[in-house]
């Protein structure tokens, strides 16, 4: 999420004349307004990042203690040892993001244009699951996907589980402890992050534009392709980022819904940090994850070519 929150475009020093004129208290107002955010960022982001960075190049052992030795090999070690986890995390997050888009777009569209007086009720329903904790919501999926449950029974009867099994997404006629379960869990847990920005950018589209397009003999599909979708792109970009970034660092879904073959990089970092107590490797892994996300997001934003995020 950090990549999303650049400090508001405050007037940097370059613009401001160095000596504030007498009685120029107003010039300082923007800085006072920024102060809480800057302090917040400093204490909860910049300082921890600094310590994390220093930890990531330390070496030693948990018994002897760790010392700053500029041990860059932590990074190459983490990279080679956990390449599989990195790849898996990004793939699962990407799949979940795509699913969120496919599920979320029609819903946001419906709420924005067709819901009428139900609009607010529907929006509350989108957010309602957030009233319970993330953990509880994920645990609930264990009941939904249970081996003996109706969902697995129905999918099995339709032979859909055979199809997903051939694709390597499920195993032995079950859903729990398979890649599909983890991706479903991620999709469900991050869906509102996709729907809300999509809704907010769709809702701003003037319906008169649709009418104008129709007056010019555009078919509904063409209206969507040429008018609605391009105008909703900021929402698509914001939604995909808000889904992809937290999903790639998530570890709860893989932990509760996955088998040993589905563990993501978040699980590995958590384990290295808390159980193995190899703090430098864990810190290096965290930085690698951040770097990977940053690169992917940068390339994506360049390609999507949007300045305005929401």
């Amino acid at each position: 999420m950090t990549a999303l929150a650049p400090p508001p475009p405050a007037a940097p020093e370059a613009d401001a004349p160095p000596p504030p004129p007498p009685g120029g208290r107003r010039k300082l107002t923007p800085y006072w307004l920024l102060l809480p955010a800057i302090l917040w960022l400093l204490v909860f982001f910049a300082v921890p990042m600094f310590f994390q960075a220093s930890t990531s190049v330390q070496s030693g052992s948990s018994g002897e203690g760790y010392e700053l030795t500029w041990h860059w090999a932590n990074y190459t070690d983490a990279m080679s040892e956990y390449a599989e986890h990195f790849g898996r995390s990004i793939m699962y997050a990407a799949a979940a993001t795509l699913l969120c888009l496919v599920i979320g777009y029609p819903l946001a569209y419906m709420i924005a244009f067709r819901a009428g007086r139900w609009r607010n009720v529907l929006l509350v329903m989108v957010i309602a699951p957030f009233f319970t904790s993330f953990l509880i919501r994920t645990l609930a999926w264990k009941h939904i996907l249970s081996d003996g449950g109706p969902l697995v029974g129905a999918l099995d009867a339709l032979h859909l589980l055979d199809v997903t099994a051939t694709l390597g997404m499920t195993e032995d006629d079950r859903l729990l402890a398979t890649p599909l379960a983890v991706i479903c869990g991620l999709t469900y847990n991050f869906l509102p992050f996709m729907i809300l920005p999509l809704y907010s950018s769709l809702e701003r589209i003037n319906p008169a534009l649709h009418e104008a397009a129709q007056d010019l003999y555009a078919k509904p599909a063409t209206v969507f392709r040429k008018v609605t979708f391009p105008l909703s792109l900021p929402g698509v970009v914001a939604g995909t980022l808000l889904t992809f970034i937290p999903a790639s660092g998530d570890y709860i879904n893989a932990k509760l819904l996955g088998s040993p073959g589905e563990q993501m990089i978040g699980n590995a970092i958590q384990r290295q940090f808390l159980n193995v107590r190899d703090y430098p490797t864990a810190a290096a892994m965290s930085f690698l994850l951040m770097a990977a996300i940053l690169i992917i997001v940068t390339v994506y934003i360049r390609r999507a070519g949007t300045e305005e995020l929401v």
Partner: protein
Amino acid sequence: MDVFDSLPEPIAKAWERSLTGGKAALSRRRLLAATGAAAGGAALAACGIPASDDGKKKGESKDPDYSKKEKELIFSNWTLYIDVDDKDENKRPTLDRFQKESGIKVKYNEDVNDNVEFFGKIRPQLEAGQSTGRDIICFSDFMAGRLIRHGWAQRLDPKNMPNVVTNMEPRFRNAAHDPGRQYTVPWAGLATVVAYNKKATKGRKVTSVEQLLTDESLKGKAAMLTEMQDTVGMTLLDMGKDCTKFTEDEFDAAVARIQKAVDNKQLRRFTGNDYVEELDKGDIAACLAWAGDVVQMQFENPDIEFVIPQKGYLYATDDLLVPAKARHKANAEALMDFYYDPKNAAELAAWVNYICPVAGAKEELAKIDKELAADPLIIPDEKMIKAGRVFMELDDDAETTYEDKFSKVIGA
């Protein structure tokens, strides 16, 4: 040793023996290791993360105790680990009685959810020599051992705990992580056993770890625990190895055996406490389980069975300790002593259903519930006591090495 003056003669003697002659005695090797590490640690501590043995010396210094002036106590425990009133969940009968009898006001927090996470939470304060804001913390034995090694636990005064001295079951007295129980008092014992859902196994009995790892009929329906000690310990026992004392090769062999079961998809998952729901529904047919959970599951689901494997089972304790810089050590000792009165211990055991470490609690428990008193998972019988083993005490480096190898197996 003046602290023993108030104790009955034979008990004082026994206690003293265990401190001076037993494992508790500070051997020359241990002393050298401690001072050596402390010297090295001081150099390293200048930058980076301090060594684990760093605090060994300073831990012995006495922290001021404000118990006399401040009649209060802050207690951090696991969730659902103390008796509550049947009608009012906010009432805790034994704890309320303690407060009334002693006049000490207890602030009871259920904020321990995971040993390593809670350790991560309080580590910065302990490292900086600050108070954690807690007077009693309940940690599993291996974690309590880590705090003791770091010098982050306060030595308890047996004079303040006559019940603990007289009533602690003998087998808990000389724990590997705290020889002579100088720093910790067990709150409850935990046995790791094999549990299965007989509906999900279609009536088939699951009696060994071997079956979890290889039985074809359990393929994709067997689970083990994410706790390294439990899973590897039980596998070592199953292989006929001694989990109280094993070599790295033996550890590797056990891990390889588990890895094989992972690779051929025999094992479905590695779980924390969350195996409970899956075993209940039958998604997991058989798994390693903690005895207290099993007892509680059996109340609701008659299909749940447990087995003490013939090759032995693993047991551990959850210990109460007073962290360094805690303000109310004597009050903490008073609480520990209170729970070692067999009557109070029985009341607690009747509710939490874990192994009771207090001698004489069986008779008191029988007055509350005959069935519970006869349950070997709460009051172990001779046979069960004999089959129990404790996982080897590991130093920090060994722990890191073993945890790293184990993490690879569970996929993280």
